């Protein structure tokens, strides 16, 4: 009887504060960004514009770049090699990682290059790459490709070695061929690792693109950064930097969305599917 009475009073009363829905993620992120922008604006205005800048000045510089058309052409110059290099890294890195992880011989023969390549000081090699490939599109593709290939490859490789042996034995028990086991058991079981590698590679690919453009300095967002820095135009310099950071955030979100589509079971198992 007491239980019933309590239940009734609960339904009649206004919602319990503890049961109120928590703030959605995007609202928290938005509030955080607004706070940072406001603080930056307040403190940035007190600094000499050569040594720093602030959001409203950067917005004005952004508008100038946009109006002159410089931003669009720089974006196009940068994004084309970025996506070609990054795409190639995925197309080549994933299968190579799968093969290295799956086959002992491949691991022994190729694993060492992948591990070493991940730590390669690419910046030091860019001048050499420029000698080989010139100052244009090709060298940017090469630098982006080399920077993003290894994290994708290593993550895929690690993912394969983490596949439970019993799942492979399920394939063997039903007389699946090596290719079928690789494609229908190991690949899906490794997908979360592959997606993590692809995510990690976004940041590296963006950095790689800028590095390549610093060295070539004739086109793209990297050139805008370098040229405006040389002219002490700090506000303009921040425009491509912020665009690149936003692009990385956007790509990260896109990859997360793709991951959710191609590997929905992963989020379900981890209990992240309700958010």
């Amino acid at each position: 009887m007491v239980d019933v009475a309590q239940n009734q009073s609960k339904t009649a009363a206004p919602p319990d504060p503890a049961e109120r829905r928590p703030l959605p993620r995007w609202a928290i992120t938005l509030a955080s960004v607004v706070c940072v922008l406001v603080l930056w604006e307040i403190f940035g205005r007190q600094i000499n514009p050569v040594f720093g800048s602030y959001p409203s000045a950067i917005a004005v510089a952004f508008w100038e770049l946009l109006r002159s058309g410089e931003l669009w052409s720089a974006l196009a110059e940068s994004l084309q090699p970025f996506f070609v290099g990054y795409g190639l890294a995925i197309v080549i890195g994933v299968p190579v990682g799968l093969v290295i992880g799956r086959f002992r011989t491949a691991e022994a023969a190729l694993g060492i290059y992948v591990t070493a390549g991940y730590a390669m000081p690419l910046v030091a090699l860019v001048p050499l790459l420029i000698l080989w490939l010139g100052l244009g599109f090709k060298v940017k593709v090469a630098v982006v490709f080399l920077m993003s290939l290894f994290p994708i490859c290593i993550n895929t490789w690690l993912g394969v070695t983490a596949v439970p042996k019993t799942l492979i034995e399920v394939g063997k028990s039903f007389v699946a061929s090596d290719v079928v086991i690789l494609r229908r058991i190991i690949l899906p079981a490794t997908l979360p690792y592959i997606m993590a590698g692809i995510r990690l590679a976004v940041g590296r690919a963006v950095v790689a693109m800028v590095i390549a453009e610093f060295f070539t300095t004739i086109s793209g967002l990297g050139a805008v950064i370098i040229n405006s820095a040389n002219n002490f135009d700090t506000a303009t310099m921040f425009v491509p930097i912020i665009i690149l950071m936003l692009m990385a955030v956007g790509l990260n979100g896109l990859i997360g969305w793709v991951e959710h589509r191609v590997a929905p079971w992963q989020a379900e198992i981890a209990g992240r599917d309700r958010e």
Partner: protein
Amino acid sequence: MGEVSFVDVSKRFSLRVDGELHHVQALDRVSFTVRDGEIVALIGPSGCGKTTALRVAMGLDPASGGRVTVDGREVQGCGHDRGMVFQHAELLPWLSAMQNVMFGLEMKGMRGAPLRETAQKYLDLVGLASSQNRRPHQLSGGMKQRVGIARALAIDPKVLLMDEPFGALDAQTRESMQAELLEIHARTKKTILFVTHDLDEAVMIADRIVVMHEGRVQEIVDVPLTRPRADLSIVRGLPEFNDTRYKIWRMLHATQTVH
């Protein structure tokens, strides 16, 4: 037909423990036969080689000596004449129950409409028709193992090999799964070789029990219970059940106290 014979099967493992190479004789000239349509349980303390014997029969591990034959044909690697039910079901987590059953059939080369129909038929057989679109993590332990059984049965093997299939389930689920397995056996008449460490389970389900100890067959015990054993609560009360159980318990106990 579906007769499995172990003929002098031996299996040695080498493993390195703290830098020292150890040789383990997992199976030592094991011989016994599972007759067509019969259920045989392999029982023994952990490390006695019962799971190894099953893996050799499946073709997952090669024998070091001797041979296993299925209907006179020597086992060399895995084959569709044997269906394996794994200890923790081992369903592919990205596939639905239905797709998991279809996976085995596809490996057998089945395509198109028969593929779905056959998978459906075996999901019905294990009582999972209503949950066929769920993924493994949305199924309970018992349901997962039902899918595992359906997947193995669907390829219509001559023999069903089961590795402690109900070992990870709670007591109540385990008993209902045992009853269900007996029912499935009555309907399909499959030869079943299953590994268990649960004495009650062995006596309840098997026609004969192979008691193993340190890689050898210690004894083969006939279970004098008639089929069908539909009502497990009645079977449990029978003197034959308790006598057989006690007999094997003493065997296991006698060898265990030696340690």
